[in-house]
């Protein structure tokens, strides 16, 4: 509404209970007094209105009275600036925000994005860094996600028995290679002595290797006999050692250790037949390119190393097997916590610990002990481990963010678009119900203003970031679209 001078004089006349001429003269006198005082003194204070000042250019300026300004600005009184820490430039326009977001998604390496990411020190928790900072992170996670894939790809061949065992036994391989050179030098001198006795030992080894590689189905059934053959071959090697005394400076020690290990754990190694067979075949294949003497020495050493490797593998597998059972029973992924809880919990776990202790020295009861705990225990923990993150995701998705929908929960810290700021509580409730009937997610709360005035504000929508709220404003109909403000729910 606009009031011109005549209308103002009419109102003044009515207020002074006089005619308009007297009111007009009184108004002119008051104006002249104010202008004159301002020009002479530089300022003129009018109670309840403000202070007129003389500007540098000679014009008059009004500094409004504080109480009057607050009452005029009652809708927004008491509001303080909202801290926003977006990881990008300061552009307030939503379009530019969206454009910068798109750039950050596609060009995460630009300097602007880097600066923007650095410019988000986390002043306010749920704001743009969460939304806009995460998007480029998601984009950046793509290559990061590829690395684990590569890791898994790398893990796959490691998990493959044929390649893993030689890979894990590289240390042994190096030793063998170092040891190979010594016998080679010596073999050159003693080749004529060894061949006649080595030939019979060679044949069963070759037959053993071929049987291992070509008949995988017969591995389980024929391994005992094959392993016996290997033992026979090792026995022949033992018989052969005295004839090679110069060579036996290093070999007999290793042979004795390997023999002891083999005798202790022959049964365990026979059960894990797949590992020694595959490693043996590969080792023999790798030695085919070398000389016959090398192959003989290699094969002999491999024959001794197989049981040790098998024993180690079985021990590791059993360790992880029972360790996995403990983890699954305690429902916790942290091993340190699990180890702390091991002595405390159920008697079943104590029994398992005893079983493990009993099992480690004697490999025989493996088949009797290992299977029983599996069916009872493993299913439950797997469900819990998978459902917990799913629940978190569902909770995140169920958070009542957005412009439309019922107001299930008021999220403290979220942003809302205030469309009404009223002093009448009843009217504010009516406006809130009206907005709810239109499908908006409406929230109403009261704000205490400095003068002791209570204002009731009605906001629509709940948003995680200011930019989301700004985008929602563009979708609002008039008059809300042009008459609103964003505020943070506290």
């Amino acid at each position: 509404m606009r009031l011109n001078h005549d209308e103002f004089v009419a109102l003044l006349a009515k207020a002074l209970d006089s005619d308009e001429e007297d009111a007009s003269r009184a108004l002119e006198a008051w104006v002249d007094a104010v202008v004159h005082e301002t020009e002479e003194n530089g300022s003129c204070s009018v109670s309840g209105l403000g202070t007129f000042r003389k500007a540098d250019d000679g014009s008059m300026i009004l500094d409004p009275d504080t109480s009057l300004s607050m009452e005029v600005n009652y809708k927004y009184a008491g509001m303080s600036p909202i801290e926003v820490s977006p990881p990008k430039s300061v552009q307030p326009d939503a379009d530019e925000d969206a454009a910068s977001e798109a750039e950050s998604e596609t060009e995460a390496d630009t300097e602007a994005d880097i600066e923007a990411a650095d410019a988000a020190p986390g002043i306010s928790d749920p704001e743009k860094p969460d939304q806009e900072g995460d998007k480029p992170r998601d984009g950046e996670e793509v290559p990061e996600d590829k690395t684990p894939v590569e890791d898994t790809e790398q893990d796959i061949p490691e998990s493959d028995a044929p390649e893993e065992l030689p890979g894990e036994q590289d240390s042994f391989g190096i030793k063998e290679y170092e040891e190979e050179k010594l016998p080679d030098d010596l073999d050159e001198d003693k080749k004529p002595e060894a061949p006649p006795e080595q030939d019979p030992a060679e044949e069963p080894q070759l037959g053993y290797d071929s049987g291992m590689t070509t008949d995988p189905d017969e591995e389980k059934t024929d391994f005992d006999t094959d392993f016996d053959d290997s033992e026979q071959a090792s026995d022949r090697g033992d018989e052969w050692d005295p004839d090679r005394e110069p060579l036996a400076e290093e070999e007999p020690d290793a042979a004795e250790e390997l023999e002891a290990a083999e005798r202790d754990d022959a049964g365990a190694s026979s059960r894990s037949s797949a590992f020694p067979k595959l490693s043996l075949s590969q080792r023999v294949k790798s030695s085919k390119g070398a000389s016959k003497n090398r192959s003989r020495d290699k094969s002999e050493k491999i024959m001794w190393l197989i049981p040790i490797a098998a024993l180690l593998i079985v021990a590791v597998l059993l360790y992880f097997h029972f360790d996995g059972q403990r983890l699954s029973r305690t429902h916790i992924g942290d091993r340190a916590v699990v180890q702390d809880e091991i002595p405390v919990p159920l008697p079943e776990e104590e029994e398992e610990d005893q079983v493990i202790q009993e099992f480690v020295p004697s490999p025989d009861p493996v088949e009797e002990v290992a299977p029983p705990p599996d069916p009872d225990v493993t299913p439950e923990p797997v469900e819990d481990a998978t459902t917990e993150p799913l629940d978190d995701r569902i909770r995140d998705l169920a958070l009542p963010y957005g412009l439309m929908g019922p107001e299930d929960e008021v999220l403290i810290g979220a942003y809302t678009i205030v469309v009404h700021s009223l002093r009448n509580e009843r009217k504010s409730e009516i406006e809130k119900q009206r907005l709810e009937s239109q499908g908006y997610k409406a929230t109403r709360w009261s704000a205490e203003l400095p003068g002791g005035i209570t204002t009731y504000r009605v906001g629509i929508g709940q948003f995680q970031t200011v930019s989301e709220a700004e985008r929602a404003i563009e979708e609002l109909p008039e008059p809300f679209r042009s008459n609103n403000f964003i505020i943070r729910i506290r």
Partner: protein
Amino acid sequence: MKNMTENKIEKEIVTILAAHLKKHDQLQINGLGTFSISHQKQEQQQEKDGRIVMNPPADIITFTPEK
């Protein structure tokens, strides 16, 4: 010095002005100028320390002197 009559006139003038300004009306007074209300939209502003703050909107009393 203003006498009592002048004070009464001034009080009534201010009362009328304030009442209409609270309604966001525009008032024109010859010889003085025009009183109005301008709306300042909320906008983001970068502080010197790098923080970005969003200033709240405001309705401001604006006085335009008569030339």
